[in-house]
């Protein structure tokens, strides 16, 4: 019987009914301390430290602080030091602050090559779906499950349903993978993928580079999806080739990986079709990633919405965002611009943003920040001179970390500030209490920084 890629991944990892073996467990400082405590209390060890890897990302300052003990915020310092101690005690490799391999957990996995096709990958972070871009089954878990994986290398899982979203055509000029996934969430709703492992397919996906695919899989969780995945192909194999953790017998691995894509005729529980050529640059206007419109549109009017629940949510969102219905999106003026996060902080994202700002100046009303996703991305960008381009334009160039995506470190919005952000969540207070977030692509964020308001990147020069 023809199988989906998900069916193959699930079947290859089912130890017993509903018990799934995990090939890689990524650990960070925020969701792990209580799990390690649990292990100690129950006198349990870590079953496979050799399938576990840790970094510090959520809490770390991006101002050049290069050791955990130097972190000024006491609670953050304790949390990162606790991670370092736990990893030492249980023999888990860690790239903490100061390591040249430190960075956002979902950036360093693919960068080290520990993210490979055919694997099951988990992490106590909802954006673990990022790794599905390699043809792996990757999803976020809570702290109890982190403890479970540490102790058993397995996870008790209910088999999700399957969904395939097929994108015909190709993305237009200026329309990026970020716009594709925002438009998809806008269409399906923030709960549209709940309970599903989602495979993104079709010519528009096949044409994408690995970073673009990662951006799409990354935001699966914003549509409620359990996991996002894309079939591995030559792009995938070329990415993994030569990475520090690439398989020694690479050709044999590629032969296995070629068996992973969904078989012709396999059936999915849900099928969705989207014309990629019809998509435009997107900007969120509200407080969920599903509250999103084309940049050429105006802020919607809640009164025109059918369902009372949608109307109430939209009204509350507009009050929070301080936006009037009918305002053209291109008249909305961010005071902050954040380029970074596990969604859009890879070298390709920074190149795209740098190309937009090269030779220009950030508007006087705007404070712009660029935060590379990892120390390696930072080093690569600096070798190409991207940091000079950003600095010359008036951007701050910072150290690697989650930074202003989630406001757990000193990079936050102050109350009422409006931000064009390449991150993944525009929830109330996500980037700082009272902060107002508009999610956009790196190009759109860069152009908004220059002009001081959103622009349609397609006709902007």
């Amino acid at each position: 019987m023809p199988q989906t890629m998900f069916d193959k991944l699930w079947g290859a990892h089912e130890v017993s009914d509903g018990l799934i073996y995990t090939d890689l467990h990524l650990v960070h400082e925020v969701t792990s301390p209580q799990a390690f405590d649990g292990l100690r209390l129950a006198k349990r060890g870590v079953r496979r430290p050799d399938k576990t890897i840790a970094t510090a990302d959520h809490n770390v300052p991006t101002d050049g602080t290069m050791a955990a003990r130097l972190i000024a915020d006491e609670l953050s310092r304790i949390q990162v030091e606790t991670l370092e101690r736990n990893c030492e005690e249980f023999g888990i490799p860690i790239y903490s602050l100061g390591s040249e391999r430190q960075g956002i957990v979902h950036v360093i996995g693919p960068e080290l090559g520990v993210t490979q096709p055919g694997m099951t990958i988990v992490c106590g972070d909802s954006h673990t779906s990022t790794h599905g871009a390699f043809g792996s089954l990757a999803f976020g878990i809570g702290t109890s499950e982190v403890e479970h994986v540490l102790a058993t290398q397995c996870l008790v899982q209910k088999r999700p349903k399957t969904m395939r979203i097929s994108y015909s055509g190709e993305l237009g000029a200026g329309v990026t993978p970020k716009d594709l996934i925002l438009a998809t969430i806008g269409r399906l709703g923030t709960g549209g993928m709940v309970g599903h492992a989602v495979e993104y397919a079709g010519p528009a996906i096949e044409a994408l580079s690995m970073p673009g695919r990662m951006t799409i899989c990354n935001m699966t969780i914003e549509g409620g999806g359990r996991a996002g995945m894309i079939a591995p192909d030559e792009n995938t194999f070329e990415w993994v080739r030569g990475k520090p953790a690439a398989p020694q017998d690479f050709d044999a691995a590629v032969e296995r990986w070629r068996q992973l894509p969904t078989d012709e005729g396999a059936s999915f529980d849900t099928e969705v079709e989207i014309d990629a050529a019809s998509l435009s640059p997107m900007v969120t206007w509200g407080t969920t990633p599903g509250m999103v419109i084309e940049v050429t549109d105006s802020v919607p009017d809640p009164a025109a919405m059918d369902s009372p629940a949608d109307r109430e949510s939209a009204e509350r969102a507009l009050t929070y965002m301080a936006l009037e219905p009918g305002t053209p999106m291109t008249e909305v003026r961010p005071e902050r611009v954040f380029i970074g996060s596990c969604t859009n902080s890879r070298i390709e994202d920074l190149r795209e943003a740098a190309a937009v700002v090269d030779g220009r100046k950030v508007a006087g009303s705007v404070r712009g920040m660029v935060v590379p996703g990892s120390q390696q991305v930072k080093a690569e960008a600096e070798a190409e001179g991207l940091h000079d381009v950003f600095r010359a334009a008036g951007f701050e160039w910072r150290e690697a970390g989650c930074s202003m995506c989630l406001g757990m470190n000193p990079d936050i919005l102050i109350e009422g500030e409006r931000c064009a952000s390449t991150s993944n969540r525009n929830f109330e207070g996500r980037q700082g209490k009272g902060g107002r977030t508009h999610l956009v692509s790196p190009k759109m964020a860069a152009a908004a920084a220059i002009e001081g308001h959103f622009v349609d990147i397609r006709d902007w020069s």
Partner: protein
Amino acid sequence: MRPVDVIEGKVSVLDRADIDTDQIIPKQFLKRVERTGFGEFLFYDWIRSGEIELEPNPILIAGRNFGCGSSREHAPWALEDFGFQAIIAPSFADIFYSNCTKIGLLPAILDEQHCRAVAEAGEARIDVDDETVTSAAGVFEFAVEPDVKHRLLNGLDDIGITLENAGAIDSFEQSGAAERGPVTTAL
């Protein structure tokens, strides 16, 4: 985890859709390394600003897609520490739902109309074994997976159950497939 069989009492109501875990427990409280004491920070910004009032009743009723966003288990910890033993909503985000069942905070799905009816009744009795929510508005059924129900009713530790199956994990590892992946300790 303590056993969960019957949850009974007054309901608190938060009639909003898409309540995300950033609202349930804002990020500044995730820096703690302990598992307890999160209740006082529940819905920190909304409660401090006077936008909502919330009584620590045994049951919380909320809108669709409750618990979306971040995988932070701190959200169920905060709800439980605040005093809730069960949450009723038309739908939950997957990771949040799973996290709740791991700590014995019961997530029960009723359709929107029934959620509102129970909210109006003001009190309810949830029977996990029968999979029912009983209130002045009537008796409504919800579904819970058999293995989750078994764990809830008996207060069982997931890890303990899995380790009873350690032989199967050993066999899986020895079959070879598990050993093809990257070795993090060799990097």
